[in-house]
């Protein structure tokens, strides 16, 4: 397998036909006609329906289930319980790597969080299974729920996020604070949030002997395949997962969840295909969430407004039984220049499902707090918030001292501010009103997200008829993988997109890594790039070595590929089509392979991040506190853009998540029972059409020679960062009231200011 070197000389700079074009969505026609088949749309012959019974308590034991009543219900085939279930080959509480999380798959009668699966009813119809689950009428031995955040028992986690240290220091924060002309201490709180992709987690599972076929949404097919193989004691190759269309994931479909495993177990138990789909309320437990945080900032600045210290202490929460600690401090490592930075953590354990990666993990919660604190410090220094950010612009990554591989943040600030009209902003708050007498405020925030790469593989085939096939098990959850990776695939073979069949969304294809970390286009794209380049290299070798080819003897000058032909680099009048080369050689097809991974040398030398600037306008009713975002302008620089329209969509979607973070989303936990009180889409608020402001996203040009040979950073998550803080800062500018507990609801803008 040829590994594509991470050099600056990208083959695509030569081909360049498809990348950068706004092709429409590859699978769009299927989606708008209802023909795109999501996991739960499958219905194999003989299929049964499985419905979960979930715990209505947060902590304790299930002491009775009326299995007889459920089984007596017409249509019910079987009831899976801790006492009656197929065996697993691996303890679901075992952890062997950081991406492995403990699962609740009926291993015992313990309840460790609300909405934990406690039984599965399998029936001929969905209605019968649903009724059977009700008839189980569980009885519990209930223990008091531990819900006290942030006041519960604190400890220092060993690691936060995937593997970040829980304590990091640069310079001397205490000295920086002691010597500061101005100091700010402020505490910001963010709530628990639930991913809530529109498509609930579901699975259709069918066993054929010890071979398993499943339809289920997955942001990480190879990882899911390995997880299932381990649990059921079968080889990974015996697990076939189809996941061509994912109805949103946002991180919740990144690790294989307990309910998905239960669907497979149910199919094993009854020996027939089984469909199991979560109800919306059941998604507030076993499929992850964003943990709450309480972030304490201590900032110091000198007389000129230069930061002298950033202290960022985060208290967050994990479940009682597993570890994931929201890495909110990370933003303080990268965004603003300061001679002293310290990030520290404490954590509390709660009776909840285990928190997980949720769109912009760490960064979203950290960003709204840091951007608020920076805004407060700018005000304390009597400086315009943009001028203050420029004063503290990081020329190198503050924590590590590494140069940035690229950073067009100044251009983002300038273009965003210009478009928004930021120059007209009065410095003091509560100065602007609209025609209806509403208070108007303008705020801004800096956006940032790391440019990550995971590992992936791809295969490319050029066929004798001059068409190509490119395969990698990429996952499209709406971000546009089918389209953008298809464009890279076509470019890698220097063919028009309609000449190349791009295959993705199946675990039978080469491992495309995780669709997460805003890294999928770069990761899978680089593997595809390598596979196509491998094919072209083999084809060139074939032609150049054949004296009947006009390319014969091109030697070191070599050839370039364009539109289905190879051209001599030193004489473009000499060329030959792929079809002619293969026909003369009598070869039906040429296969190439590629893989991608992070480049440790580049990682060691450079800090790699996408950046952006977001400007927000809000109106606030001065009497009622009613709050609306009326305008958002974001300007983002994320390296090479494969498909500008899809990237714009990602920015829009991310910015609306930022709006949601600032004003809407929160899980409200009943402190008595530990249950989420708003486990539905009526009361877990997300923005709807009526909440929508005018949104603009500017794509700022940026070239990065170091992140990878394609120069791609990520765009999926950055839009939340910056936006949430910009809105919070605009609320302050409108009202003069600083809300530090998110989301900012109208009760925080009227009455006593204990926000």
């Amino acid at each position, binding site marked *: 397998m040829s590994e594509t070197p991470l050099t600056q000389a990208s083959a695509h700079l030569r081909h360049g036909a498809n990348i950068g074009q706004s092709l429409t969505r590859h699978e769009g026609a299927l989606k708008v006609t209802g023909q795109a088949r999501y996991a739960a749309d499958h219905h194999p012959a003989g299929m049964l329906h499985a419905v979960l019974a979930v715990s209505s308590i947060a902590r304790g034991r299930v002491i009775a289930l009326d299995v007889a009543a459920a089984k007596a219900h017409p249509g019910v085939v079987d009831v899976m319980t801790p006492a009656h279930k197929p065996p697993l080959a691996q303890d679901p509480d075992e952890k062997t790597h950081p991406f492995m999380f403990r699962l609740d798959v009926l291993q015992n009668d313990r309840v460790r969080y609300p909405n934990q699966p406690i039984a599965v009813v399998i029936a001929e119809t969905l209605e019968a299974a649903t009724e059977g689950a009700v008839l189980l009428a569980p009885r519990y031995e209930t223990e008091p729920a531990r819900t006290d955040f942030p006041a519960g028992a604190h400890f220092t986690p060993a690691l936060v996020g995937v593997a970040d240290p829980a304590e990091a220091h640069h310079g001397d924060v205490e000295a920086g604070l002691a010597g500061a002309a101005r100091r700010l201490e402020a505490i910001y709180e963010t709530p628990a949030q639930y991913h809530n992709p529109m498509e609930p987690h579901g699975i259709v599972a069918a066993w054929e002997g010890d071979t398993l076929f499943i339809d289920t949404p997955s942001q990480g097919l190879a990882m899911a395949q390995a997880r299932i193989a381990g649990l059921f004691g079968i080889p990974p190759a015996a697990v076939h997962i189809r996941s061509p269309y994912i109805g949103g994931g946002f991180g919740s479909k990144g690790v294989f969840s307990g309910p998905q495993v239960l669907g497979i177990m149910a199919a094993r138990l009854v020996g027939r295909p089984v469909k199991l789909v979560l109800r919306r309320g059941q998604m507030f437990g076993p499929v992850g969430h964003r943990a709450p945080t309480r972030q304490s900032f201590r900032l110091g600045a000198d007389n000129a407004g230069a930061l002298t210290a950033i202290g960022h202490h985060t208290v967050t929460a994990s479940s009682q039984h597993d570890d994931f600690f929201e890495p909110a401090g990370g933003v303080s490592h990268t965004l603003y220049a300061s001679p002293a930075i310290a990030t520290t953590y404490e954590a509390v354990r709660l009776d909840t499902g285990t928190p997980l990666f949720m769109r912009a993990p760490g960064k979203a919660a950290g960003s709204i707090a840091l951007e608020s604190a920076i805004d407060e410090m700018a005000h304390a220094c009597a400086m315009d918030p943009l001028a203050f950010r420029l004063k503290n612009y990081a020329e190198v990554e503050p924590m590590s001292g590494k140069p940035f591989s690229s950073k067009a943040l100044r251009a983002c600030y300038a273009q965003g501010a210009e478009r928004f009209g930021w120059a007209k902003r009065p410095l003091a708050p509560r100065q602007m009103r609209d025609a209806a007498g509403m208070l108007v405020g303008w705020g801004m925030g800096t956006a940032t997200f790391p440019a990550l790469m995971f590992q992936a593989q791809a295969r490319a085939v050029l066929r004798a008829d001059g068409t190509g096939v490119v395969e990698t098990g990429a996952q499209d959850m709406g971000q546009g993988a089918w389209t953008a990776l298809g464009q890279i695939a076509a470019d890698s073979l220097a063919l028009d997109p309609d000449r190349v069949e791009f295959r993705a969304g199946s675990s039978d294809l080469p491992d495309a890594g995780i669709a997460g970390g805003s890294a999928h286009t770069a990761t899978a794209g680089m593997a595809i790039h390598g596979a196509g380049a491998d094919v072209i290299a083999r084809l060139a070798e074939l032609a150049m070595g054949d004296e009947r080819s006009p390319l014969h003897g091109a030697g070191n000058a070599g050839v370039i590929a364009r539109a289905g032909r190879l051209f001599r680099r030193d004489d473009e009048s000499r060329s030959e089509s792929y079809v002619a080369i293969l026909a003369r050689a009598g070869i039906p097809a040429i296969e190439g392979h590629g893989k991608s991974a992070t480049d440790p040398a580049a990682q060691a030398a450079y800090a790699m991040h996408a950046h952006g600037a977001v400007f927000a306008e809000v109106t606030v009713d001065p009497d009622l506190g009613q709050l609306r975002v009326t305008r958002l302008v974001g300007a983002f620089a994320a390296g090479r853009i494969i498909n500008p329209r899809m990237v714009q969509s990602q920015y829009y979607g991310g910015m609306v998540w930022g709006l949601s973070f600032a004003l809407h989303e929160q899980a409200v936990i009943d402190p008595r029972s530990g249950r989420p009180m708003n486990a539905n*889409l009526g009361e877990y608020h997300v923005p709807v059409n009526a909440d929508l402001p005018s949104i603009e996203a500017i794509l700022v040009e940026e070239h990065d020679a170091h992140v990878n040979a394609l120069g791609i950073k990520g765009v999926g998550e950055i839009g939340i960062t910056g936006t949430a803080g910009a809105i919070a800062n605009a609320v302050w500018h409108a009202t003069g009231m600083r809300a530090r507990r998110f989301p900012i609801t109208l009760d925080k803008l009227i009455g006593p200011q204990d926000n």
Partner: protein
Amino acid sequence: MQPDRHAPPSSLSRARTRAFRLNGRAHAALVADHVLLLDYLREGLGLTGTKRGCDGGECGACTVLIDGRPRLACLTRAGECAGHQVETIEGLADGGRMSPLQRAFHERLGTQCGYCTPGMIMAAEGLLRRNPDPDEAAIRAALAGNICRCTGYVKIIEAVQSAAGSAR
């Protein structure tokens, strides 16, 4: 903790033959009284374009047209449709030809993950049939009950405006 238990009323198990029009064609079937239109379409007829996104009436993903008006299939019993016209996303295209709204959603990128899309299009279709030239506020109001978690809505509004414009 007391179990929360409710026995099904005996009438729930009764099934009757129901006749209605589905996507323009006469349709008659034996349908149990308690079966929801959403589950009947999806599991009974294999019309899986209509999606379930919530536990009842919160998200709009299952929006269909009944007698030309947007209705939530998750809050409608299949039996109630007797004598009425039901239209789903599958009935919107004319043979292989996308409807103007479908084409606009496709070309304007009004769909991302696509899960809310059928419901969103059916809600918009209901709007355009009663108001062929809606302003932006009317579009937003008509789609206020349809949640999209991906797009930020901008391109959905643009798609509906575009479809309305092309019909003018």
